Structures are given as C-alpha cells and as structure tokens.
C-alpha cells in the first residue's frame, strides 16, 4: 500500500528559527461537555492525560490533549492510531452526546524551533510571545497572517503550529518570510 503523505512532506527552512513541516500527526476533534465525568474519563483512558484547563495543553509521550474551546478538544496521537482512538472514544461515550472525528489529514503541523521562534511567531500572530507570557503547556487559537492557526509550545524554544492542510504552503511561506535571517527584531 502506498505511503500516506503530509501536505509538504517535511519541508524545512533554517533562519531566525528552524521552521519545518512536522510530517503526519494524528489529530482528533472531540466535541462534548468537557465537564462531564464520562468525557473526562474517556479522554484520560484513551490518551493518558487529564483534560487541561482553558488555553492549556496536557501531554504524555506521543499523546496530547489541547483545549480548543469550552466544548472542544484537539487530541493528539500517532497518525496510524487516530481511527482506533476515534472508535475507542465512540465506545466509551456511546451514551454521551459528543462528536469525535479524525481530522489528522485535514490539518498540517509545523515545528518552529530555536531562540528566534518567539519573534518569528510574533510577526504573524497577534499574541504576546514574551517569555513568561507564553510558555510550554499553553495554547492559543489565533490568526497567523491571514489564516486560522493554533499555536503551543512543547518545549523551551519549540513551538507547534497547526493550520488547515490546504493552507500549509501559505503558512510555510509566511513562516519562512518571518524567519528571514536578516529580519531579527531583537526584543526577546
């Protein structure tokens, strides 16, 4: 069987920060009552972490749970496991009104790595990326130049960016422009 491919097949660019398409990533949108015990238990059982607080990310190994809205989570897992995880949630929440759907291929993910990452993203997203204001464990749904995106940090100097798959080339282009080595701002 042919290999599944991500939108930009791990293209990368080195500038103020290293910008790379992160390859295939399992992603599931879960909508439901995030306060419901059944939902929290199902998420914990399938992904090994608790439902995080508002604007936060919880992760353990390859699994992660991102808060997206008062009734929406973005669940992270290896690409090949997404369908099984959707089924697992479906079984666990059979009696609970919810929507779990595999969106792995509907999205593209980028990694922005390096000390310049805060500035690179600060040129594209209307967010305060100052140290102390945005740190690992936090997530924001925001606007990246002209398209929607979600941004979080999964380590010191390491950002993850998720956008729609069809916009991957645009987002990569915008990140490359923002990471132009001659365009450092010098504030972070």
């Amino acid at each position, binding site marked *: 069987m*042919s290999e599944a*491919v991500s939108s930009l097949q791990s293209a990368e660019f080195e500038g103020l920060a290293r910008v790379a398409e992160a390859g295939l990533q399992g992603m599931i949108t879960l909508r439901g009552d995030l306060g419901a015990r059944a939902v929290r238990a199902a998420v914990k059982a399938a992904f090994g972490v608790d439902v995080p607080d508002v604007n936060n990310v919880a992760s353990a190994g390859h699994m992660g749970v991102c808060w997206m809205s008062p009734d929406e989570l973005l669940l992270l897992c290896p690409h090949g496991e997404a369908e099984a995880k959707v089924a697992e949630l479906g079984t666990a929440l059979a009696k609970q*009104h919810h929507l779990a759907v595999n969106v792995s*291929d509907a999205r593209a993910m980028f990694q922005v790595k390096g000390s310049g990452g805060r500035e690179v993203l600060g040129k594209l997203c209307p967010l305060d990326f100052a140290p102390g*204001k945005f740190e690992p464990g936090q997530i924001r749904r925001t606007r990246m130049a002209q398209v929607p995106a979600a941004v979080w940090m999964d380590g010191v100097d390491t950002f993850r960016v998720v956008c729609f798959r069809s916009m991957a080339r645009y987002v990569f282009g*915008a990140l490359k422009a923002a990471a*132009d080595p*001659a365009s450092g*701002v010098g504030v972070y």
Partner: protein
Amino acid sequence: MSLRLRDGGRLIDRSARMAFQFDGRSLTGFAGDTLASALLANDKMLVGRSFKYHRPRGVVASGAEEPNALVNLAQGGTFEPNQRATTTELFDGLTATSQNHWPSLEHDIGAVNSSLARFLPAGFYYKTFIHPRPFWKHIYEPFIRQSAGLGKAPKDRDADRYEHFYYFCDLVVIGGGVAGLQAARVAGEAGAKVLLLEQSAHWGGRAPVDGGEIDGRPAEAWVTDTLAVLEAMPNVTLRSRCMGAGVYDHGYLLAYERLTDHAPQADGPRHRLWRIRTQQIITATGAIERPLSFAGNDIPGVMLASAVRDYVVNYGVAPGQRTVVVTNNDDGYRTAICLKQAGLDVPRILDARETGGGALMEEARALGIRIDCGRAVGKVQGGKRVKSVQVCAQKGSGSALEEVACDAVAMSGGWSPVVHLWSHCGGKLVWDDVQAHFRPDADRPPLGRSGQGFVAVAGAANGALTGAVADADAMARGVVQAIGLKPGKGIAPAETQPEELPIEPVWLMPAQAKTELKAKAWLDYQNDVKVSDVQLAAREGFESVEHTKRYTTLGMATDQGKLSNINGLAILSDALGQPIPQTGTTTFRPPYTPISMGAIAGEARGDIFQPVRETPMYGWNDSNGADWEPVGHWRRPYAYVRSGETVHDAVMREVTNTRENVGLLDASTLGKLIVKGPDAGKFLDMLYTNMMSTLKPGRCRYGLMCTENGFLTDDGVVARIDEDTFLCHTTTGGADRIHAHMEEWLQTEWWDWQVYVANVTEQYAQIGVVGPKARAVLETLGGMDLSAEALPFMAWADGKIGAFDARAYRVSFSGELSYEIAVPASRGQAFWDALLEAGKAHGIMPYGTEALHIMRAEKGFIMIGDETDGTVIPQDLGLNWAISKKKDDYLGKRAQERVHMTDPDRWKLVGLETVDGSVLPDGAYAVAEGTNANGQRNMQGRVTSTYHSPTLGKGIAMGLVKHGPDRMGEVLEFPGTDGTVFKAKIVDPVFYDKDGDKQNV
C-alpha cells in the same frame, strides 16, 4: 548662498564622503547628513515647486514637519515619491529628483500660474464646477490635471519586503528627546515594561542644539548618560528610526520602523509596522516652530529659525551667509547667537515685540548683533533665492523703512506642541494664552476601557517649553501609578536655561498688512494657501474651521498642516472676530507622517499575498496542464490543457471524453460538514428546504439551503452516516460560511438542541469518477462491490477500493454513471495515481471545472452563484420538488410566503437555445417592449449560464425569464455589447438525457 562650514556638525562624519544625485547632477555630502542638509551644503536652495502656483520652494524645516522639500527617491522597484529630504538620511548612491515642475526645476512653464494667481482663489476648484458649465470639461479639468499633483506614482512593483510585529507592554513612550528619555527612565526604574520610540536616528531631540544644562551637565552629556542607563535596563526597549504613527482605542498603537531606508543595500525588510497593545502611552513628541506670515515667506532661503540652527549645529551647514532673524519670542535669538558664533553674518534681528526679549537678547546684543524691536519683515525680495528684506513697523501696513540685503531669513513665530498622538484617540486641547498655542488638556485625555485616561503627555508636547525634563518626570510618575506600580524615590533632574520673556502672538506680519502683501503671505506652503485665501473663505461664509480647511485646502497636503494649521486658524479667527479657542482646530488623524503602503501590507506580497488553498492533488494538477481558476481561496483546474490545445479545445475534449469514456474530477474542495447528535435530523430539517430526517442511513439526498430571507444560499448532497450522524456536502466556496451559519443557529437560537458540527472538508481527497466506464475503472482496482445492486443511485458505502480505505457515493452532477470517492487526504495523490493507471485502458482523462459546468448545464442542474445571486428563491428555479410541504418550518419558509416572493411575475428558470446555434453572452438581458420610468428599455429576462455544448454541438444556456416556463418555444432577443442581437428560443432547461437513464445504470 548656503554652504558647508569649515567646522562643526555634531551628527556628520567628515571623513566619510557620500556621493549622491539630485536631478541628475552628482553631488557629495557626509555620512550623517540628511538629504536636506547635503543639498544645502551644495547650495541647492531651490528644491521643488509648489502644488498650485509652481512657486520656487526651498527647504524650510529640518524634520518631519517639512512641507516643501519633497522629492522622488530612487528608481524602478524602489522608486518612491513625496519623500521629505529633511528626514531622508543620506547614503552613498542616493538618487533624488525634484517634483512638480515641467520641463525642469529651474525653468518651469507651470510657474505662469503665479501670474494667474488671482484667477485661482480659495475654493477655485469648486467654483469651476459652477459656471460656465462647458468650461469644466474643456478648460478647467485638462488644466488642473496638467498642473496638479506632487510626485509621480511608482510604475514598477515594489522590490522591497515589509513586515508586521505584534508587541505588548505596559508603557510606550513616543519621542526620544530629553522628556521621553526621562519618562522612560522613571517608568523603567519602577519596573514597567517600557518601549521607547524615536522617529529619527538620534536621541535627545532638540536639547543638544538648543543648549542649557541638565543636572549641571550639558544636555548632550545628560542624554548620553541617560541612554546608557536605559540600555542597561532589561525591561526597557529602545527603538530609533521608529515613529509612533497612530494611537487607537484600548491602547492600540501603530509604530513605523524604518529599517533600511538609510542603508538600502542591507538585507531584510525595509519597514516594520509595530502593532502594539499597551496599558499606557506617554507622548513626548516635542513642539514644532511656527512660521511667520509675511509677504514672500515662501522664497527659498526663508526658514524656520530652529531649522537654521539645526543645520549649523548638527550638520555644519549654513543656510545663508547673511541671515536676517525675525521673531516674536526669545527663542529666535538662539539662532542669531548660533550663527554669529559660527562666524556668520547676522545683519538684523527684527523682534516684533516693542520691548524686545530677555537674557538671550542681551547675549545677542553683546555679540554685536543689531536688534530692532517693534520691527517686522514687510516683504522678502527675491525669486529663486532671498535677495533682501524690506523692514517695516510691525504695527503698520508694511511701508518699507529700509531694505536689508541678505541671503537667508530665519523666522520664529513661537512653538506649537505636537499634540497629534494625544488627539488621535480623542484627547482634547486647551488654548494657552501665555504661550500662544494649543496644548493637551490633562483633564480630558483619551479614555480606555475603564474610563481612565491611557495617554499622557510630557515635555514640550505638553506645553513645557522650558522645564521639559521636570514635566516628564512628574507625568511619568503618575503613569507608573496608573499601571499599578510604585514610582521610585528619585528627584527630577534640575534644568538650567536662560530666563525668557513672553511671546507676543503675531499671526500676520505686519499687523495691518496691505492686500497685496497678504496675497503673498503663505500659510500652507505645500498646498499654496495664503492669508488672503483664508480671509476670502471667511468672507464667503466658511465659518467652521473644518469647512475652511476643505474649501481652501489648508492643511490637507502630505504634511497635514504641521506648520500651517495654527497660523491658519488664527487668521480665520481674526476674520471671524472671535477668539482662537472658539474656532478650534481641525481633526488630527493618524498616521503622524505618511507611512508606506508596504508597511501596511506587511508580509502579504508575492507568494504569500493571499492564502491559496491547495487540494492533495494540487501538485499533480499543476504539472499536468491545469489552467487554474480561483474558487474562493481555492485553486481548481478550469481545464487540463495539453500541448497544442487551446483552453477551449481542452474543455470540449474533456466533456466528450467524460460522456463517452470516463473522466476524473478533483472534487476535494467540496465542503464536508459532519452534523451529529440526537437532534441532528431536526436541525437539518430546519436548515434545508427539504426533509432530511427521513433519510435512511446509507442513502444520499440533494438539498437546498436558504437564508432567513428565503434566498437560495447553498446546495449539496447530504449523506446519512448513522442514526445520529449526517455528512453535509456544501459548495466549494460555501464550507466555511455554512459551517459558521450552522454554528450561529446552534449557539444563538437552538442552543438547547443536542447537535455538534465539525468541518472535515480537508480530511478527504474526494475524486469524481464519471462516465459510462466509471464502474469498470473502479472494478479494475478491486475491492468493495460497486454494482448497481450493491450501491444503487443516491447510496453510499464504506469499504476498500484497491488498497485504499474509501467511502463511495453514487451521486451524479453530470448525468453520467458517476461515483464520488473519498479517501484520506494523505493518500489522495496515491489514489488519483491508481485511478489514472487503472483507467488507462478505458481512456480516462481528468477534467476541470468548465467541463463540470457544461455537463451540469446540459442536464439543467443549477449552480449556486450562476443561477443564484442572492435574489433568487428555489421556486424561481423550478425546484419546488426539493421544498417540503410537510414541514412546519425551515429557514426561509416564511420569507418565501411574502407577496413579492409569490408574485407570478417573478422571472423563472428556463433553457435557452440560440436559433443559429451560437453561444449567448453571459449575463445578457432579454429586452421587452417599451421603456421604464427612467427611459431605459424594459427587460424580461437574463442569461445565468451559457456554454457551447460539444455533446449537442450548439450553444445552450439557462436563464431567468418572466413567465418563462409558460412561454416554451417563444424567441427572445438578447442584445450583445457589440451591437449584435442574439435570438434565442425558450426551451426546457434539461438538454440531455431528460429521463436520467444514463446516470442510473
């Protein structure tokens, strides 16, 4: 003549020569020069022509307020008009040309305007509209077009890059003079996160030029020390060449950073627009000196007194060798003293005040300068340069008492605080009688969300023309507390400056100037507005300052009246016989000085001008002849053009091949929304005009969606996945819109319904396999049973096709046997490749959107956006079969019952066939007898879709026609735009396979 002095120039480096060109002539300056100082150093007194009269104009100022010295900079992709020479830093290789003249700066034919000046009074532009009427078109307009306009518009694409940067802080201090430095220091020491902006390349503002001591040290030394303190603070960020451009609601501030204007060979973006959110703003923007309004005050060589000493002290350039200083305040004496100390001649100081000034006057007198009090400039003599001034009594009408030869005039009419940024967001002003200027009214600041002021003003901008540092210190302490921090214990630095006597306002020089003098006394240099123009406007009834501004164009030029506004409104007040505060000011709007369009656009240029959405097969499409068509932000292949083919050829081939063999369509852009929950069926019954809750799992149904007003807004196939789950297909452009539409209803009206929606459009690559051989191609790949029995028309099923997890829908938008197959997007290209391979033996070819359109039109299927335009209801399109009569309600139902919607005269969908087989023009109207109330021809219908059908070998069209379905066979006339009239017969809109036998096999 102006010249470079042998010594001096604190900002220039005499060891670094810079070659530049002005109007094609090679000149040199030094590193640190501005273009203006370098031009003056080369005795270029004449640098441009005025806008209306084409008067010779020279440099008048030394900073952002400059109205005259505007030039075209650079060439080709970096060309930019209307750049101020006074704020353009000189670099090696700079090229500039002067503006607004023909054929040359020295010999300008347009200058004849000035002898016609009496025919171009205030409001002349508006008056030309009035009478005599034919004059406008044949005389005024061509004349005005020929003479108006400053710089040229760039012709080439901008070669530079730009960017935005979002920044958040507690306090932004705008202005890096001594007040701004002190304010930043106070806030920085209190622990606030501070951003300090300075528009020029240098810190300290005017203080190093104007002298005085701070904390017992020369101002310049204090600036250096304070800068070092600020640079050492991790919580303070300093940016020079970065102008605070505009203050907006809620502490939003735009700053304009010029990164490479001074070094255009450098890499990186040219400008950066800072988009800042801050709790508090301190504007320490200083003050601008006012010109004096005397006859000939626009002749090259007449300059602001402060600018004259700026050129001497900062650049070692003397604007003249014999300079007459004319002032109404003590500050003007500083220029005379500075010139004298530089070894230059000052034949006179004319002080309009009868009793003269204070300590500075004594100092000037001690230097041997002759000072005449109560005297004024009656008139400046000269054309392209100053030759002399006629001295008169300020209190008189301008009779010359004597004539003094000179080559420059330094004028000081007092100082106006730069209140722009304070005023942008609603800060109010108060008139200061003692200093004769408007200054910020601290009691009426711009208000933030809490109702508290978020802008404070410090230093000269606050009217503290002396004691600016102490003023800034006090202001900053208050602001620090507003941020919620505690100011430190330090005491404000002490300032030592000479005692000054009060200014005496002089709005017209001399006070009783004769008419011919007033007609040569300029207020607005750039737009050529004189004292006589404002007075004429007042006589003609323009009492509001905003009306006078627009009527005379006072303050409407690129400098936005930085020099002219206060003088102009003082003249207006005088003409109206009312005090200045009663007249008030015009509105201060951002940006403070013009900013580049590139900076506003930011990164959005070239490849990332706009997001282009790509399907998983985008790359293959692109390298296989796709002629791209934008559909929303998506790009879809219009046709796949082969070598030797025209686009039209390709479309015809694709239609024929799909009808005869099999075609492949990249349909991935179709919107796919999952709607799930116990109330999903009920919800979709409200959204669609037809019934969706009765759909069985495994089946598909075509549905229509309307707005609340009844108009058709989207359509598509709905598949029921299971009891609780539906998958709704939308149009390509409709996915995001319909998703938002669903969420809005769920969140605002039916919030108690248990329904969730997710947009999974991009999760799938969706491929249409269309044509009589479609099943054969799919069966070649093997896998799930796709027979008519297992998967009948309007059914769907999950399974494997070849090695691919797939969902197959038996739907048809072409009238052929057709499958739409969805596979995960990550395998889309692989599946496409597999289909092409499997289809080789069956003559498979991809087809684009135009072939899709033709085939759906042959079948009489409507297209959202073609047959609909926001005014069309489903009933107009004969889609009554898709409107449920059983349902109590759906969105649009009530609207469709309104009288206008049920009017039998509404235009309805029909097919149209030209009598000669030609193709009707798109959008053409069918004419009817008679004319309407406006004398226009009556209409009875219009074309909504029109194509050449290769299947039928003739033109086919759809259109909306009055009583159309009842008029089958009638021939209508459609005038084209080229004089031809197309004749078309009304026919059934289904041109091909009316019974649907071909799709149902």
